[in-house]
């Protein structure tokens, strides 16, 4: 233990959370170094940029999922919400009565209105989650797995199990493909960075952010300490759904298509990066910054596996092994610290 001799008071010790985030940054550095040695052309600015930007959609999802995990709850509906929002935005925006093909006909709404309504529907899914979990106290994993299927089911009905990608106005493809002036960094990536920064500020500096940790650390004590636990959980579920909705809009715009099986399994990816980033599945512990580091770790491994041109089975195995080892190392480090 270090002590500050001058004032005689103990210096604030590094919190477990900062320790873990730093530790995972170390793990990231090691994995990155190995990848640089093994994979040709891995160590270059362009590739580093790819690694940070490739997973922007999972990182946006990760924000909501991380907050909810910290409160001790799951959100498995985010992948379904992406599909639903994407499909709805396309359907709302497709021209009305322009083709004999039902999948080419939509409601003919202006783009902004279509996006607004689609996001509203996303928040609606969040509200369903919130109602059952915060009000009726049903375990979150059950409800959100249910709404995951509900959201994707609606998306499949609207697209007849396939996709809608015709008779869309040009502005539909704008936000998803436009790059920042003078760069090839896309708006989606900027959105991700801004959201992560906002989430960091929210989590670390605001009263509401602090209450996320309180609820996760001890929900009953939170209630008895005057925290409106139900209302907080409800807002977080709606926030998570909104973030998934924004992701869905951006993804749909990127390919100018609403695909009903888009983002299948992303809820698990979001969960994995949160766990890799040290978020505790029991609640009360973790951070958005850690989740971000976790996402980068996963991205490095994925990118290296692609660069090595391994067969799909080996790629899958390597990703699994690295994820497993990283989480193991993390738990080990935390235990040693205690």
């Amino acid at each position, binding site marked *: 233990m270090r002590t500050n001799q001058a004032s005689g008071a103990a210096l604030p010790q590094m919190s477990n959370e900062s320790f873990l985030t730093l530790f995972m940054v170390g793990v990231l550095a090691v994995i990155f170094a190995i990848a640089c040695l093994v*994979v*040709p*052309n*891995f160590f*270059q600015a*362009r*590739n580093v940029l*790819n690694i940070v930007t*490739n*997973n922007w*959609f999972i990182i946006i999802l990760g924000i909501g999922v991380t907050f909810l995990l910290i409160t001790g709850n799951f959100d498995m509906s985010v992948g379904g919400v992406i599909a639903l929002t994407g499909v709805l935005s396309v359907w709302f925006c497709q021209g009305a009565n322009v*083709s*004999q*093909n039902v*999948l080419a006909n939509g409601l003919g709404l202006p783009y902004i209105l279509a996006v607004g309504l689609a996001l509203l529907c996303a928040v609606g899914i969040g509200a369903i989650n919130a109602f059952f979990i915060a009000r009726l106290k049903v375990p979150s994993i059950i409800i959100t797995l249910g709404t995951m*299927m509900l959201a*994707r*089911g609606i998306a*499949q009905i609207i*697209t*007849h*199990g*396939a*996709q809608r*990608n*015709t008779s869309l106005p040009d502005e539909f493809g704008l936000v998803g*493909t436009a*790059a920042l002036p003078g760069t*090839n960094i*896309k708006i989606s990536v900027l959105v991700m960075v801004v959201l992560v920064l906002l989430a960091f500020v929210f989590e670390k500096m605001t009263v509401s952010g602090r209450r996320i940790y309180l609820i996760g650390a001890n929900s009953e004590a939170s209630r008895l300490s005057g925290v409106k636990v139900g209302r907080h959980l409800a807002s977080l579920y709606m926030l998570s759904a909104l973030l998934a909705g924004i992701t869905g809009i951006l*993804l749909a715009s*990127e*390919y*100018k*298509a609403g*695909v009903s*099986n*888009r*983002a*299948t*399994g992303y809820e698990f990816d979001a969960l994995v990066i949160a766990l890799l980033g040290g978020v505790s599945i029991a609640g009360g512990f973790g951070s958005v910054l850690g989740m971000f580091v976790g996402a980068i770790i996963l991205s490095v491994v*994925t*990118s290296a596996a*692609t*660069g090595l*041109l391994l*067969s*799909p089975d080996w*790629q899958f195995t390597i990703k699994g092994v690295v994820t497993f080892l990283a989480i193991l190392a993390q738990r080990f480090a935390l235990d040693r610290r205690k």
Partner: protein
Amino acid sequence: MNRNLRALTFVMAIVLAVTMIPAAVAQAKPLKIAFFVSDLSNVFHQAQFTEAKKYAKAKYNADVYAFDGKSDGAVMTQNVDQIVAQGMDMATLHIWDGEAAKPGILDALKNGVIVTSFFSPIADTGIPTARSDEAGISFDMGKQMATQWKKAFPGKSIVMVQLGWPNHTEVQSGRTAPFVKGVLSVDPKATNLGCQDASKGADAAKQIVTDLVTQHPEVNLIYSESSNLTVGVMAALSQAGRGKFANGKPLTEIVCSVDFDEVEMKSVYDPNSSLKLSMGLPPVETARGRIDLMFDIKNGKVAKTSQPAAEKFYKAYTVSFWSMPRPEAVKWLNTQFGTSVK
């Protein structure tokens, strides 16, 4: 996913079908054909079914019934069991789980039904398969791409990659392997980086290409095994500042796709996009081929079953910036799919 929903609609379909059987039996003259499609909501399958109905009636005076798999392997298997129950005389299957459907197929064969398959042979049943001549088109596309690349950059060696389903037999025999052969037929020294797994969809394809063009920037011929992966491939290329042509001349790479459609139309004939070819799978020829194969069996030209199973190939098209003029491609789309593209 929404299996329950599908099961429910399926049950309702059966109920409907059963109530309609007596009416069908009453005028039992024309042959009844079970026409399987993996998903009737798909535009290609819709066009295929429409054509099959028209063609069978005109040429063979047969009635065609759609057996919709609804993108669900279990529904497809259940549909197989319905062939005999619904009194079908012929069936052309399009199913995913061959092993599970095998008993149903053997049962149908035993009942004298003529059974064929579409796209992939089914287990070891030995029934003949109707397929588009994908291999020929893939070879042709490979050859064209290699030729155009060498014409633009005689000094730059070819490095190719494929994206899709590396472990899928039909995809390999009809797409990846012949494509590679086509490229090698022009430049025997071309490097092949192999087939990358993009089976998860467009986002996976995008991520792979992003990483690939960074770590292997020398890649210049890309085969994307399906139009829905191609959107991801093109997005990744454009993000990396590639994906462009200079007025019909290659710059960094040439891309080809499979399943030419209205959306790909724009890129293929855009002189500034590097997506320049796509395999045109024709619903018309496919439907006719599937129907003809069954009547070939009936007329004794093809064995009911054989080991190994017979494969019959029907025409497909190379839609190419270089070899098929735009008006022809527009016409092709409109006749094949009944669309009104201009």
